[in-house]
């Protein structure tokens, strides 16, 4: 095999994810690195369904279903109980963008601020998919959802969740996507190695029905998000040390990403809006490049070893 992805599976087939679900694949690949000494906490989201209805479920690790807003705090409690029992089990809060960017943000911020020893993973499909594609604060500017129809597409840019997490100065935060499996695997391993504090992974996860595209385009869509710099792959240590982990070879226009998905029809129909988005993407990319270079300079300066 050409891939550095482990062969062992910790997710059974028979999940209820839609055809081509990026969230399902995200879970499958993350679990391969997590192994079986782990517990997943799922707030309300597609994954509450995907894992299967009682009395069956798909993951080969214990899953705790919990209320929409509570993923981080429930994970914190379970970790505390495990610690009391002298167990080193990895506790993962696995939430959608709604359960992370919106309703889950308070609990997440609290856990991050306390630097809880948990891994919080957001599989971001950029809307409330489970309840029928309503917008969230992760929905990008100019996007169609059922609550932001074509005539009135999403008016606000996507919330900068990575910036928020970095501001908490947690040990490790990273973006990743299953379209780059080796990068994803490595980041999960890095997060596991950084145990003792809060780790955050932001995984862009295609949703074919919610993104209005063919199921078999799912990987290509996530790949193009990276190639166009719409979703750069990077990691942040201690909230300050930035590192871009994948450098696109050539500048690919954002339209290449948008044109694959029906949800971006309003963007593609409005040149001014498209230009605005294009500029936002560039600006954001150059911001990251600058942070990346700054971190390199600091690391090579004599007093740069300690950023804290």
């Amino acid at each position, binding site marked *: 095999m*050409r891939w550095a992805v482990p062969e062992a599976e910790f997710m059974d087939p*028979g999940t209820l994810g839609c055809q081509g679900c990026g969230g*399902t694949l995200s879970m499958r690949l993350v679990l391969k690195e997590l192994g079986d000494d782990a517990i997943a906490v799922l707030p309300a989201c597609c994954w509450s369904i995907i894992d299967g209805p009682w*009395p069956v*479920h798909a993951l080969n690790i214990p899953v705790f279903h919990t209320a929409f807003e509570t993923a981080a705090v429930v994970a914190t409690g379970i970790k505390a109980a495990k610690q009391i029992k002298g167990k080193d089990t990895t506790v993962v809060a696995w939430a959608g963008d709604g359960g992370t960017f919106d309703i889950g943000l308070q609990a997440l911020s609290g856990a991050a601020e306390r630097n809880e020893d948990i891994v919080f993973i957001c599989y971001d499909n950029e809307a409330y998919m489970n309840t029928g594609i309503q917008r969230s604060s992760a929905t990008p500017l100019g996007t169609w959802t059922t609550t932001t129809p074509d005539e009135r597409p999403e008016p606000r840019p996507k919330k900068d969740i990575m910036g928020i997490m970095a501001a908490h100065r947690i040990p490790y935060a990273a973006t990743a996507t299953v379209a780059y499996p080796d990068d994803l695997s490595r980041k999960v391993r890095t997060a596991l190695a950084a145990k003792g504090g809060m780790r955050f992974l932001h995984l862009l996860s295609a949703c074919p029905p919610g993104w209005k595209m063919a199921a078999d385009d799912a990987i290509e869509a996530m790949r193009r998000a990276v190639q166009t710099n719409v979703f750069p792959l990077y990691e942040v240590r201690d909230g300050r040390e930035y590192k871009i982990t994948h450098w696109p070879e050539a500048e690919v226009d954002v339209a290449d990403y948008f044109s694959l998905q029906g949800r971006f029809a309003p963007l593609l129909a409005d040149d001014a809006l498209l230009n605005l988005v294009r500029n936002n993407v560039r600006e954001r990319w150059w911001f990251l490049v600058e942070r990346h270079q700054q971190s390199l300079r600091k690391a090579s300066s004599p007093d740069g070893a300690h950023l804290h």
Partner: protein
Amino acid sequence: MSTLNHVDDYPEIPVSLASTRTILKTGAWRSVRPVLAERSAPCSAACPAGVGIPAYLQDIKEGRPKEAFAALTSRNPFPRITGRVCPHFCEQACNLEEKTGRDSVSIRSIERWLGDETAHLPHPVPSRETGKQVAVVGSGPAGLAAAFYLRRSGHEVTVFDRRDLPGGMLRYGIPDYRLPTVIVDEELARLEAMGIEFRNGVALGSDLTLDDLEATYAAVFVATGAGRERTVGIEGESLLEPGLAFLEATGRGEVALPGDRCAVIGGGNTAMDVARVLRRLGAEVTVLYRRTVTEMPAIREEYEHAVADGVTFKWLTLPRAVKKQDGKLIVTVEDMWLGEPDESGRRRPMPTGVSRELRFHGVFSATGETADLTPFPDRLMSSDGWLSLAENGATTDPLVYAGGDLATGPATVIEAIVAGRRAARAIDHQLGLDRLWPEDNPIEVVGSAEVNPTYVPRHDRTADHVAEWAGPFAEESVTMTDAEVLYEIERCLSCGHCNACGTCFVFCPDGVITWEDGPVIDYEFCKGCGICVAECPGHAMILVNEREVSHV
């Protein structure tokens, strides 16, 4: 409100303990199913021999050169030779080039490496003898390939050639700097080790007739090539040196330069090699060709090599007459222009009426070759005076087959090999011996629109290197290193052939592909999203409509 002090104080909560596998048969959602489907890669389809390129590349990659050699030689017994001189029809068709604009995979260089790597391996000896004797006349690539496959089938094979040593154009045409004679000799030794008998210095027609052969042998394959040189048809013809004869003489080590200024008339492969040999021996060489570079029949690479050697080309130059003056040859040439295309599709050279005189020490003719049909009795001829041949080389006499340059006119080594192999197969069939010939390649060819080049590395193509100058006839290029070969193989998409890259396994969202040296799809659960098919680099999987799948 109750206090929760003991585990028994907690209310019961539902817990799922069984696997989704037990009841959620998501395969029922599917309307299309992915299936592994071996199809032809465009390179394999373009190779006259149909060599299964992605498959043997995988063998090399996974450290099985013997298997790669067996796979290759099931269609082409001489990778060491074609790996050096073939015009690589395969590379022209490579999907990588079409899809991405990157250079094609260096298939020929890999083939050459494999040939060299396995040069010490003996060819398989037949497991059983058929007791049939088959004669092959002509020991060029067509005859040698036929002998190889016939012997492999267990026949007793004798190869006759009018020359003192076998090999045909491999020995006496293609010069050593492109194909060293030692390689031809080593290949011949391997054939001898299989039990093939060579009888040299026996000419069909004068020493022996087809009737003589038919009296002794169960079948005869004739591949006497196209070795008769065309004359230029100009005044002073006798002052010209025939190019092919010159190449043969140099091949025998009889090197003689007529002087330091030479001209070669013609634009085919023979002209290129004559010009290059002269140049490499130190002469100043001018090729006189009546059309331009675009219409020239020589293999493009050979023209480029000639230019690199320092050969000069005079285009639109038609020799009209040659005469001798003060020990020099004066060639009168007329300038031409290009008119309408002729039957060959190339623009026809038209006279301008403007003539000049050029001076040389020696002038060589290389304007093409034809077959000598005199050894063939009239009963084998068609009404147009040519040999009457079926596609598999069958003549009108059921015991006699023919092929190679003899049948096609000057062509290529690999086409000659194919003719030999095809005739061997036809002879086997004719003799009623149901030897297991490999199945024919799948007809369906993977198109460039189907492949996914995302996962192959983007590095530049690597091919044979130029060798350091070690004399005019020392091999001019060097075989790639092991590391370079592996690196180059990584660029291959493996069109239509699962090379166990694992991409489908990694990307299946539902984990329904298990890995048993390759992908195994569990249709009980596959939802038919099609991601495995879309991501498979070489599109070795296809989607089939469920309605077309018969259920048991």
